[in-house]
């Protein structure tokens, strides 16, 4: 249990997708103009990360890893399909995004209305593929750990995009030097927020 809480806190604050790895920067910069849209985008990312990471975990451990195919037949012990992981992960992500879109549309039209435009964007959000690749690299030991890591990463991304959107809403009323307006100042603020997030480093439960 403690191990899980540790992974959770670590993926939200210390290994934050935005501030530590710059993943998902494109949608982070594009969709953070108002708090309302950024909340929608943030929820969509939590949703998709929470689904795709466990699925890709199963894929990795039962098909792609060296010796993962043993459950089929003993003779597959030396088969290593690791080189296929990029294409498999991205296929899972693209189809999951499509599926999530359809499910949300069917069961919660209101949520679909607010998330609608962002869902297709997520297929090419680096944070999603990055999450799966980190899951592969860090070799989590159980599917529960992988799920917790996925949810934590999503929540970290959510916090980051909502925070920057709130700051950008306020900064519209300040006198930023003209060449820095818009993109430039957003980069610098994100850098400063990253420095602030670094104070979480070394936290362990």
């Amino acid at each position: 249990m403690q191990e899980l809480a540790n992974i959770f806190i670590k993926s939200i604050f210390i290994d934050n997708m935005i501030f530590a790895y710059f993943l998902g920067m494109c949608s982070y910069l594009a969709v953070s103009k108002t708090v309302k849209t950024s909340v929608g985008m943030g929820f969509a990312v939590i949703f998709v990360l929470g689904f795709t990471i466990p699925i890709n975990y199963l894929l990795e451990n039962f098909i792609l890893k060296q010796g993962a195919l043993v459950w089929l037949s003993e003779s597959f012990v030396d088969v290593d399909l690791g080189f296929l992981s990029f294409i498999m992960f991205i296929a899972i992500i693209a189809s999951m995004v499509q599926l999530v879109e359809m499910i949300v549309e069917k069961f919660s039209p209101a949520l679909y209305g607010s998330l609608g435009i962002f869902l297709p964007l997520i297929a090419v959000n680096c944070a999603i593929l990055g999450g799966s690749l980190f899951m592969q690299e860090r070799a989590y030991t159980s599917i529960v750990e992988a799920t917790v890591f996925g949810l934590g990463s999503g929540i970290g991304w959510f916090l980051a995009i909502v925070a920057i959107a709130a700051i950008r809403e306020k900064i519209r009323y300040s006198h930023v030097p003209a060449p820095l307006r818009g993109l430039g100042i957003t980069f610098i603020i994100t850098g400063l927020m990253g420095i602030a997030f670094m104070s979480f480093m070394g936290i362990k439960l």
Partner: protein
Amino acid sequence: MSDKKEALFSKKNRKLLIDPLNDNNPVTTQVLGICSALAITVQLKPAIVMAISVLVVMSVANVVVSLMRNLIPSRIRIIVQLVVIAALVILVDQVLKAFVYDVSKELSVFVGLIITNCIIMGRLEAFALGNRPWKSFLDGLGNAFGYGWILIAVAFFRELLGAGTLFGYPVLEKMGLYEMGYENNGMMILPPMALITVGIIIWIQRMKNRDLIES
């Protein structure tokens, strides 16, 4: 068939190649491809390897998609593009693992993330789907160079100011700066400084070219 009459490097084609280097830079103006760009700019070597990988993937993907542009149904084009890019990235990844294993370890997941690099998707969507292969190739090359020089510039400053080396060669030590009391700025190695460096590059660029300023 008006393309046939056009010279291989006509003015228009040169513009495709040169524009993305500065005024229409993918990173600082189009805001694409920042995701995988910043995390690997602590040192020059991985930054250059990354720039070359993106160059290869991007120019080939642009040509391939441009060749298939009349065959791809528009509903499933994103998946088709992702498959083309992913196949190329797998090739690049295997080549890197075979020839420069240490750099490949250092880049870790970021080679894979070329797949979701928005520059590549963005240029495929915006350009290769509507243009001939040669033009798309030039466009891919131009944008990859535009991305590459930002990457290399950021890595240059971060390595020089953060560790005092270039390509691992201790430049500042040989210049005798440490004896004069100079110290490395360890801050430059940390991830947030990459963002601030890009912010400053954007500042300088927009000061020179006032048309780019956002209202």
